[in-house]
């Protein structure tokens, strides 16, 4: 096909779209709505996953020091912990701090019980990058002579790790289901659109147009319908996400902040949505119309 021919056929596709306005607009609208569903729920699922992963970080391991540990030992250990790549954060809790905390809990009755500030040991509270390494980390630091004891809440670890794993699995599965159903919806719409132009296809065949010559404008139209649907959905989805993102970002003081919910980063997420929509819209438009038209070509 020459370039002039190609240009002519693209022009024909646009002309066809404007002449079948109701069909075109309705199909673009359907692609738009379908991708909007994908977008909104996809982002919802993404953020659930994101928050579930964030949960893992909340788990901490307590490292209690022996009462004899002096400032140098403590500093050295602090450094070791900070350098450990498996550890995300390190917090030192002195004997005094531990005592104050306990005192609060027992409503100042400690002193009446004759318990002094050295009643509790000093400790480090660390959080791990990957909760699956907890056993390894605990075992390692237990060996240190300056460390009296290493504790963590085994059940919380198990609970949280399972919980977030499940949430991510379910979200992932739902994402796949959603995408599949969207594929069905969009290709179905394209099929309806092509079906209602069956007459044209048949006439073209009767006057001797090759299958390629008949298909190409339809396929381009399908691609364009997918493309326009995708662009509109992206604009709407993006707009909604930016709004929600801003609510999250500006809510540092209000009740939303209290929940500890986080939101997935703006740019990466929008880029992902954009690419996903264009791929889903355009490819489905192209492939959908190609398949839809094949049946009508058998004359």
């Amino acid at each position, binding site marked *: 096909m020459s370039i002039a021919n190609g240009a002519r056929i693209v022009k024909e596709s646009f002309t066809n779209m404007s002449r079948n306005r109701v069909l075109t607009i309705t199909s673009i609208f359907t692609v738009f709505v379908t991708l909007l569903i994908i977008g909104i729920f996809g982002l919802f699922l993404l953020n659930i996953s994101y928050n579930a992963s964030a949960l893992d970080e909340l788990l901490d391991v307590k490292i209690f020091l022996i009462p004899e540990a002096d400032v140098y030992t403590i500093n050295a250990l602090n450094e070791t912990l900070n350098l450990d790549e498996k550890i995300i954060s390190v917090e030192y809790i002195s004997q005094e701090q531990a005592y104050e905390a306990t005192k609060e809990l027992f409503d100042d009755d400690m002193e009446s019980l004759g318990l002094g500030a050295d009643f509790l040991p000093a400790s480090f509270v660390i959080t791990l990058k990957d909760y699956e390494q907890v056993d390894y980390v605990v075992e390692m630091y237990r060996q240190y002579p300056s460390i009296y004891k290493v504790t963590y809440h085994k059940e919380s670890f198990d609970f949280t790790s399972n919980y977030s794993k499940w949430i991510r699995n379910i979200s992932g599965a739902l994402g796949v289901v959603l995408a599949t159903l969207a594929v069905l919806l969009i290709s179905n719409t394209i099929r309806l659109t092509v079906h209602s132009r069956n007459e044209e296809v048949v006439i073209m065949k009767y*006057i001797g147009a090759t299958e390629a*010559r008949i298909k190409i404008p339809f396929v381009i139209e399908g691609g364009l319908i997918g493309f326009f649907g995708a662009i509109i959905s992206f604009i709407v989805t993006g707009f909604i996400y930016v709004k929600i993102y801003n609510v999250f970002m500006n809510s540092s003081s209000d009740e939303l902040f209290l929940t500890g919910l986080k939101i997935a980063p703006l740019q990466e997420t929008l880029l992902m949505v954009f690419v996903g929509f264009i791929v889903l819209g355009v490819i489905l438009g192209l492939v959908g119309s190609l398949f839809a038209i094949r049946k009508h070509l058998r004359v």
Partner: protein
Amino acid sequence: MIILKDVTKVYKNGSEALKNISLAIPKGQFAFVIGPSGSGKSTLVKMIMREELPTHGEVFVNGYDMFGIRRHQIPAFRRSIGVVFQDFKLLPNKTAYENVEFALQITGINRRDIKKLVPHLLKIVGLSQCTNAYPDELSGGEQQRVALARAIANGPDLLIADEPTGNLDPKTSIGIIELLGKINKMGTTVLVATHDSSIVNRMRKRVIVLDEGRLVDDQMRGHYI
């Protein structure tokens, strides 16, 4: 050029449209197919352009066997035939101009030639004013003439016209039939299915008569009785 051997056509719903038709139309001939409504004229046309396949028998057109022809050969085969359909079959979303243009485009003629040819063709059939009208904005006779312009557009070897004057007044009809005569003189085989006795009697060409799907008469210089 066209050979039918023992062709029988029974449609899916059981109606027998053609019964044991054998027929040969040599290259360059001008032939009419006449017969009462429902006698099988359009079905015969459909056999020749491979819109339908016969239930029994064989059909050869322009050297192609309608059963043996390959899927990818069909477009080229159909481009070698020009057809005026009884119900016109114009593309509803293209203007008169574009309908004719499309038939030329698919033959691969270059754009400059197309730009000259289309107005010429529309002028021949007397439609210079309505080039930008869509089929549903044209009168019945105008649509019929667009269909004719499209059928003759790429100088086919074989021209088949199914009632090409059914919606035309006598004067326009005569003009059209004389046009077909001219095209035939230039070497194109022409087959016209019609019930218009005046044009048949005017031309004195071969007349094939169908009745209830049977070939009942075939005269070389026939007329409409």
